[in-house]
């Protein structure tokens, strides 16, 4: 099977700080890949390089066979098919939940308002917000905001979704409602790359766990392998600290 996403020798630095030091990663259709690692290990930067919110210095990223680093590639067309969910939600502050979801389908895919709204209602229902369709995005709780953000990404009907620490800004009590939505998505066969600190989620849902440290992928494998029998000393150290905290 062809990988949907292929990353090769990706490097990125901010000023003199080298954040990514040659990343190679392949993601196959329908796979759920969780990227774990300490803060500052380059997880989020890697994710942002995948849809070019950050521009990598060197290396290659192929998505569905197209080279993202090639200047002639229409990035906007590719981004339509890569949904992204942010740590800080980034809902459009001047719109309500429905308009947040309809804006991109209407202006990018040129759907009619009626079609876009049907789509938005469908996906808002999927994330359990059918009662908040007309709610002002600023008045929603964190968990609701993040679920609207997921619905907004789903409205573009992406082939792959990127999650950048989607639950890190949430109350521990409402993390569950967002994770449940993500589990549902994974169950439907969505290709997902998830940067997360939720080890239980990674263990339960992911097909593959990637451990990053210091800008490189130190170890990857099935959850059973990485959590059960970590090979690298650094992975053991990281995981044991997490287990202590729990």
């Amino acid at each position: 099977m062809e990988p949907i996403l292929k990353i090769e020798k990706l490097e990125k630095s901010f000023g003199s700080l080298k954040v990514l030091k040659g990343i190679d990663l392949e993601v196959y259709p329908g796979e759920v890949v969780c990227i774990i690692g300490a803060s500052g290990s380059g997880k989020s930067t890697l994710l942002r390089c995948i849809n070019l919110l950050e521009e990598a210095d060197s290396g290659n990223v192929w998505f569905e066979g197209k080279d993202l680093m090639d200047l002639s590639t229409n990035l906007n067309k590719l981004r339509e098919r890569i949904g992204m969910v942010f740590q800080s939600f980034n809902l459009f502050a001047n719109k309500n939940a429905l308009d947040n979801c309809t804006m991109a389908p209407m202006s990018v895919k040129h759907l009619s308002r009626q079609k876009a709204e049907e789509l938005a209602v469908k996906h808002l229902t999927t994330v359990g917000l059918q009662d908040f369709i007309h709610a002002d995005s600023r008045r929603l709780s964190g968990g609701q905001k993040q679920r609207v953000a997921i619905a907004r990404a789903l409205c573009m009907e992406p082939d792959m979704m990127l999650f950048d620490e989607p639950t890190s800004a949430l109350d521990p009590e409402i993390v569950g409602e967002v994770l449940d939505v993500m589990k549902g998505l994974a169950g439907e066969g969505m290709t997902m790359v998830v940067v997360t600190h939720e080890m239980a989620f990674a263990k339960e849902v992911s097909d593959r766990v990637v451990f990053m440290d210091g800008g490189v992928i130190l170890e990857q494998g099935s959850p059973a392998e990485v959590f059960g029998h970590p090979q690298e000393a650094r992975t053991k150290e990281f995981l044991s600290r997490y287990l202590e905290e729990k």
Partner: protein
Amino acid sequence: MRKLVDFFRKDRRYGYLTGAVMTALNVWMWRSEPSRLSFLGSDSVLLYLLAAVCGVFAVMALIAGAVKLTHWRNYGETAMKKPAMLKVARYLYFLVLAAFLVTVTDRILLGFISLTEESVASESNPQGFLASMIYMFWKGRSMFALGVWTTVRIALLGTAIAFVLALLMVTLRILKPVRQDNDLVRFFKKVGGIFSRIYITVIRGTPMMVQALIIYYAGFGLLKNSSMTITEINYVWSAFMAGLITVSLNSTAYLAEVLRGGIESIDSGQMEAARSLGMTSWQAMRKVVFPQAVKNSIPAIGNEFIINIKDSSVLSVIACFDLMFGTTSVVGIYYRQLEVYCIAAITYLILTCFSSLLMKAIAKRMDTPAKDIPSSN
């Protein structure tokens, strides 16, 4: 207003003090010459009645004061704090208040009305300061009206035009060349950025009076090179037109900076979210960032309008018939400077206060908190 009413109704700690002040003011007003419309006059029964009330209150206040001085620490136990005494003091206090209101109506309000009537009907410029102000305001009313109309038009139109131009200017300012651009686009973005930066620096670094003169004479000079006669030029290139263009171009620079601040205050995540959904950077700007930035900038735009009302006064140097030019014209007729400039000051103050209230109402409606008027630029 509500606070004032509450002060007189509820706050009795200062009852004797405010009563005494009002009594003193009453006496001062009674001693002044009664106007033609006065119903109190200088020796009517009503006047003596009011005087008697104030007199009784004054005596009582003096006694209270004396008792307070002698019984500084145990004033509360003296006869002055007996309920009956307090009741008498309170009713007397209300009567003094009523006497004060009657006197103000008679001497100040009716006095002003009769002064206005007299001044307006006067054959020549009266000697009194206020009378002369009213006389000249009435005689020069058409000039003041034309001046206010021009000032308001210039400020309104100027700010509106400037807002549109500022949107273009700020677009030039914030467009950054990106990797995907070809050389031509890159060149235009660079040139646009440099142009807007120079424009803003020049406009903000020179006085509007100089700008007005340069624009007026530059336009005049350009048209003179064509085959038009001076009369035709004056018809096409009026001082009003030059003034409006000056204010518009001037405000553009300031509003562009206001909008840039507004745009920069929008979290970069808004842009990233829009881009991640496949929107182009122009779509993201137009649909997500600009609406929020403009909304946040509304108080500052209102302030710019108020500043334009005041600063358009420098346009009188190019003979644009604004309020200041009208004022100067009236000065030229009567040769009474102080009085006429006071009229101009009051008129400007009314205009700006009214606009300020309007802006606050709009800002409240749009759910953006209004700030106070900043200093003029």
